[in-house]
């Protein structure tokens, strides 16, 4: 039955070319804070910071706009990251005990991050026998040729870099214990290696700290223990003082010890000083300590410790202490500290560290403390914005923000961040080469705590601009007072609250549901969970005024309904002080106070429209007068009255069913286990019965046309204002449209008085049309198109000459998008013109739609309107408007990612955002022209270019016998080609530890001409344990194999 089949567009090559110039799908950049960060590193030379996550991602950040992302092939948590300083290489250690080498490569002027090598140690989590080789700590030597690996078993292994070849010089307990005094040995193990630190002056010496407390200064060249420090407390971390004369160890009892290195006494029993900052009661461990010197006053100046809090009183806090002379500050964070580092002077010639800032990675945010400024204020981060400081409940995007409004919002935002310096961001490596975005874009996020945050979404880094709180106009149970958090003078420890992550909401009713902003007039409507609709106006002055409150009864005397949900929020009586920014003008409260499900604003007509699950209302905020209230409830709908909590009831049945299913599967699983038992016959029979029962009730779906009395059918899903033809084809005028969950559309003709008469004359609304879509699917969106099929411009756009006037001559049409189909109706008759039945064709349902203007890459002049649609399967379809012809389809979000699909917003120019975690937006682009992606460059200084070696498997290296003679005798095969002709650049790995006759210093073959197998052989001596060799030759890569037999 071909007639029902999706009618294919003829493959017109001309049209295909235009489509390619209009549409292209790219996931461009992730905004926000990485979900579940697990590791942090900093490269002081390139000034880049890297963050690893539990999902195996590595994100590198430099100057604003400089961003790289890499993802490990296995989704194992990144436990450690280390920069090969200055080389643009990153070493990562994963939870599965594998090491990975990443490289910032360059291509067409842009840098990118790629994995080049990996190395797997045999230690896997959970397997006892191999836990001895499980890596606990890594040390990269400063000259970057050697990696020291400390393990759980207490051994220290040495790997040559960047080849990851294991050197036969491992250091084990027994060798260390030989030099330890007898009384210290007492038969106990030293425990895992907890810390490895290179001597700041003498490169051949490393400090090794064992869990039991023993610290050893080990000379790599002579393989000799230089000094022993007999610590008795369980060790957590070690840090050198810059001079190399002293070092500090931190311990699990919450204290730290300062040790002096004296070459004359090989065995030190007692530390120079011993401090437990928050003693004498038992304290939590100091997990990491840093020691930085400044020239202000004392010799040892700044110490930073993490943890160390008295266990009993503050054991649940996440703290980091900064000590400098007498200054002592305890930073009190709201989430767990992952790691921290200081940005300080790395010039070897200088006498002091002179730290300028402290960067702390927390589980939920990044905090940077300016140490150069007295009082240690925080520096606002230009990226890694904690989007989720309170859970995001809705998002709203505004394209092409006028510069006037933009500046006013920035000014308002700056006055809010008084406690922040506007010092330079310390991490400023690389440079962004992305073109400056032409338009200013705002992303507004509504949060659970009643705040609306304004973000600069113009570029790659999403920056906070302004925060608006709506909680202060209501009387809530706990009026949080910021002054309370400021600690009194005498308080000990001297806590200071830092960071903005605050997942606790005072009152769930404050949650923001819908936002609408008029970018020309600066009017904002914010609607929340308790039926509150707040009209706001952007003011540059501080204000102290009363808020007008109005209530609108959406039930309209409908009999037999009682609201069982929450109460409305009581507004504050009396005047309230409002800071410069958005200040409330009027508060409208819906009765019953159900969550607002749709809101829209027409600033030119001074009207707002809002809808809940009971009906919709129209309000004139200029005269503070309700214009219209209409109940959309179906008489049989009982669920709508019960409020959000009792939705649990409807879930109950399905939950019960799924539990039953789980139970059944357990029973049937057990069956086999008990089968040998003769007394279990009854059980067996029961199990069988249960299995049969399970078979009888499989997952099944009822096929039934939607009826009018489905529950929640009255929910208002969308509202829109339009100046169009509703009553007849000759007179246009203001109209308001509302669509409900049951496929009803109400269209009202409005009588709006002219600007001058606003105060005298009231707005009138008359029902013009009522459309019942026969398929009864929820109406997702309504938009009116002008005579040329273009969407009507926004309010003020025409009167301020910002947009072309719509065609008021031709006949207008209305595009109604339901969850199942799109339909264009001619106005004023409301006769169907075109339609596309998406669900009937594809089996997917519409979740989000937007009208988008796509501009061609080839010419700015050519653009097309498109209807963009995200479905419940997570794919995006683009349709032409008003013909509704399918154009392109892309897979975007996993269909299981319901919150991702629910959070998606589209921009007017063909981009979009959706949440990939509670804290991160993924930005994507549907337009071939408008793409916001990080384009950046990092200049790296690399002697050895690994790019010719590419990725190699090295996992068996540990099992090889590293006798160099054996390697020499290996059989070499290199492709089939005997000669590789071209300009070749062969990397040779510097290997001072390689005692082979052919070894030499860095050697770069840069020859043009023939390369014989002999040359390759030579080369192979240096790449030793690769089982596959890749030789790049011009653009081609030749592959060869090395047999290790």
């Amino acid at each position: 039955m071909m007639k029902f089949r999706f009618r294919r567009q003829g493959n017109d090559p001309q049209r295909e070319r235009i489509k390619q110039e209009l549409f292209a799908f790219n996931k461009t950049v992730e905004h926000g804070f990485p979900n579940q960060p697990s590791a942090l590193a900093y490269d002081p030379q390139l000034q880049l910071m890297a963050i690893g996550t539990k999902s195996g991602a590595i994100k590198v950040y430099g100057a604003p706009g400089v961003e790289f992302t890499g993802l490990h092939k296995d989704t194992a948590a990144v436990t450690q990251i280390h920069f090969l300083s200055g080389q643009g290489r990153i070493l990562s250690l994963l939870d599965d005990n594998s090491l990975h080498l990443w490289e910032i490569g360059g291509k067409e002027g842009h840098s990118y991050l790629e994995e080049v090598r990996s190395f797997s140690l045999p230690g896997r989590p959970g397997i006892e026998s191999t836990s001895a080789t499980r890596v606990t700590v890594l040390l990269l030597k400063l000259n970057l040729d050697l990696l020291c690996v400390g393990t759980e078993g207490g051994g220290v292994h040495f790997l040559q870099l960047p080849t990851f070849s294991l050197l036969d010089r491992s250091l084990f307990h027994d060798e260390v214990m030989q030099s330890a005094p007898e009384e210290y040995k007492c038969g106990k193990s030293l425990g895992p290696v907890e810390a490895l630190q290179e001597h700041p002056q003498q490169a051949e010496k490393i400090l090794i700290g064992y869990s039991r407390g023993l610290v050893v200064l080990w000379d790599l060249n002579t393989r000799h223990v230089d000094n022993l420090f007999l610590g008795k407390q369980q060790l957590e971390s070690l840090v050198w003082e810059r001079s190399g004369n002293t070092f500090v160890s931190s311990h699990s009892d919450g204290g730290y010890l300062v040790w002096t290195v004296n070459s004359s006494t090989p065995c030190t029993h007692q530390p120079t000083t011993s401090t437990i900052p928050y003693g004498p009661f038992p304290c939590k461990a100091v997990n990491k300590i840093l020691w930085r010197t400044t020239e202000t006053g004392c010799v040892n100046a700044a110490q930073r410790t993490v943890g160390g809090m008295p266990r009993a009183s503050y054991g649940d806090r996440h703290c980091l202490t900064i000590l400098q002379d007498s200054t002592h500050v305890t930073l009190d964070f709201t989430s767990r500290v992952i790691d921290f580092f200081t940005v300080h002077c790395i010039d070897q010639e200088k006498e002091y560290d002179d730290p300028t800032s402290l960067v702390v990675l927390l589980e939920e945010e990044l905090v940077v403390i300016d140490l150069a400024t007295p009082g240690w204020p925080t520096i606002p981060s230009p990226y890694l914005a904690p989007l989720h400081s309170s859970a995001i409940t809705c998002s709203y995007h505004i394209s092409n923000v006028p510069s006037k409004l933009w500046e006013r919002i920035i000014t308002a935002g700056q006055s809010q961040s008084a406690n922040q310096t506007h010092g330079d961001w310390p991490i400023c490596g690389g440079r962004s080469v992305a073109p400056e975005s032409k338009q200013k874009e705002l992303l507004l996020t509504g949060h659970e705590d009643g705040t609306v945050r304004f973000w600069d979404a113009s570029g790659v880094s999403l920056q906070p601009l302004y925060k608006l709180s709506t909680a202060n106009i209501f009387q809530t149970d706990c009026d949080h007072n910021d002054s309370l958090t400021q600690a009194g003078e005498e308080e000990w420890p001297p806590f200071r609250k830092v960071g903005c992550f605050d997942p606790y909401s005072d009152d769930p009713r404050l949650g923001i549901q819908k936002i609408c902003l008029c970018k020309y007039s600066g009017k904002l409507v914010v609607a929340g969970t308790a039926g509150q609709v707040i009209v706001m106006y952007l003011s540059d002055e501080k204000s102290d005024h009363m808020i007008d409150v109005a209530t609108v009864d959406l039930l309209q005397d409908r009999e037999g309904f009682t609201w069982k949900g929450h109460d409305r929020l009581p507004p504050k009586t009396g005047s309230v002080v409002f800071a410069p920014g958005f200040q409330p003008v009027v508060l409208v409260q819906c009765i019953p106070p159900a969550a607002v499900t749709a809101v829209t604003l027409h600033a030119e007509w001074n009207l707002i429209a809002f809808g809940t699950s009971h009906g919709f209302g129209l309000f004139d905020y200029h005269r503070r007068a309700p214009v219209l209230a209409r109940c959309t409830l179906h008489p049989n709908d009982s669920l709508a009255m019960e409020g959000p909590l009792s939705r649990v009831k409807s879930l109950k049945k399905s939950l019960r069913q799924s539990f039953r299913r789980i139970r059944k599967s357990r029973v049937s699983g057990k069956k086999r286990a008990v089968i040998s038992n003769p007394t279990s016959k009854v059980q067996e029979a029961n199990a069988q019965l249960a299995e049969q029962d399970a078979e009888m009730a499989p997952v099944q779906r009822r096929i039934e046309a939607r009826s009018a009395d489905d529950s929640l059918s009255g929910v208002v899903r969308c509202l829109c204002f339009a100046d169009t033809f509703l009553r007849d084809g000759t007179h246009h005028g203001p109209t308001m449209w509302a669509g409900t969950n049951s496929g009803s559309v109400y269209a009202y003709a409005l009588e709006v008085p002219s600007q001058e008469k606003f105060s005298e004359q009231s707005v009138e609304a008359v029902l013009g049309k009522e459309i019942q879509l026969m398929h009864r699917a929820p109406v997702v969106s309504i938009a009116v198109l002008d005579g040329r099929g273009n969407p009507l411009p926004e309010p003020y756009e025409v009167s301020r000459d910002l947009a072309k006037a719509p065609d008021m001559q031709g006949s207008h049409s209305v595009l109604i998008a339901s969850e199942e189909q799109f339909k264009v109706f001619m106005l004023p008759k409301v006769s169907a013109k075109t339609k596309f039945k998406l669900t009937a064709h594809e089996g997917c349902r519409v979740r989000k739609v937007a009208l988008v203007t796509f501009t061609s890459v080839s010419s700015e002049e050519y653009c097309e309107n498109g209807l963009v649609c995200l479905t419940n399967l997570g794919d995006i379809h683009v349709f032409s408007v008003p013909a509704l012809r399918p154009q392109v389809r892309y897979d975007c979000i996993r269909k299981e990612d319901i919150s991702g699909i629910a959070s998606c917003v589209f921009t007017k120019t063909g981009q979009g955002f959706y949440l990939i975690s509670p804290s991160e937006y993924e930005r994507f682009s549907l337009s071939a022209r408008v793409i916001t992606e990080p384009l950046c460059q990092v200049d790296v200084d690399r002697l050895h270019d690994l790019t010719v070696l590419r990725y190699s498997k090295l996992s068996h290296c540990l099992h090889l016998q590293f006798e160099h003679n054996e390697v020499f005798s290996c059989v070499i095969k290199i492709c089939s080609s005997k000669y590789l002709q071209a300009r070749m650049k062969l990397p040779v790995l510097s290997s001072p530890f390689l005692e082979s006759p052919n070894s030499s210093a860095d050697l770069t073959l840069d020859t043009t001409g023939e390369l014989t197998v002999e040359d390759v052989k030579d080369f192979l001596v240096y790449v030793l344990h690769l089982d596959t060799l890749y030789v790049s030759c011009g653009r081609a890569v030749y592959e060869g194999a090395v047999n290790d037999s």
Partner: protein
Amino acid sequence: MNRNPREPSAVEFGAEFRRFSLDRSKPGKFDEFYGLLQHVHRIPNVDLLVGYADVHGDLLPINNDGNYHKAITTAAPLLRLFLQRKEEADYSAFGTESLTRKKTPAALAAVLLRPDGNRKKPPIIISLPQDFRPVSSIIDVDILPETHRRVRLYKHGQEKPLGFYIRDGSSVRVTPQGLEKVPGIFISRLVPGGLAESTGLLAVNDEVLEVNGIEVAGKSLDQVTDMMIANSHNLIITVKPANQRNNIVRRGGRDASGSSGRSSDSGTSFYMASNAIAMTPSHIIQNFRPEEEEDSEDEEDLVIEGGGAAIPIGHVAASAGVTCSMPSLPRYEPHLNLRTSNGGMAASASMDTVSHKDQDMEVQAVARRSLEEDGTVITL
């Protein structure tokens, strides 16, 4: 003419009789006749059901010009008319055999004037033929393999639920690589009294292959559910019935054997025989009007003008750029004849396998033209 009007009232069984005459050569229109009847009985505002006794003694309705003229011509010379109040009409009286056994007016009157108390159970009320409408049909028999059945369910906005459930499952398909287990969608349950059950065309464990022409292969249960609900006003499901014994077998022995996919020499005689028994064109009811189809195809949204009455939204004729307008169905629309009971004729059809599907299609393409003329017979 003998008239046997009936004024069933509570007071009496008292049948009123009137007798009048008409000019047989100029009978006029039904409407005039109807007015005349109302006039002579002095019941101008009462809706009446008019019936007459034909030559066989059957009580047949008069409700349009056609059957009115027919009635007049059959009068020999007396035409016995029976009038009933429409709201109290006893529809069961109509039809064959209703009057054959009792040919006398008295007997007829007895049939019609049975006192309510004497009825053992309320008679089943059957509407007049023109009030019948299709609720389901088997369509596209000519283009589908015999192992498949395409069923159309007409919702018509009525209250009766579609009444079925679907589930995930797996079925065995023949692929070039051999037998392969593939996921499929199956009917899992029929709701008693629902449309699906009452048609008898769908059964539990039937595999759903297409929904309104779109293959469901590769689609999830939820997707198929959404597709079906989106099409629920005019749902066309192609199924592979779990019970293959009731498959439609086409007329024409050669075609049938060809489309069974078996070698013709082994199957021909059998099919010839079974077809000869079962197939009679008289079983086909073609009561489906194509224009109705167009309406139901494009569901009408309801527009209520502000303060006015509801008007259905018409389709803008020949509007440019319509993507979804679909050509009308082939007119060939057989309707299931429920009264036929030619059971057991097509037992062999169960031997058909999916593997033959492709060659089936080729054979059918050749055979289609003749099939269109002959129509199809459905057996249960």
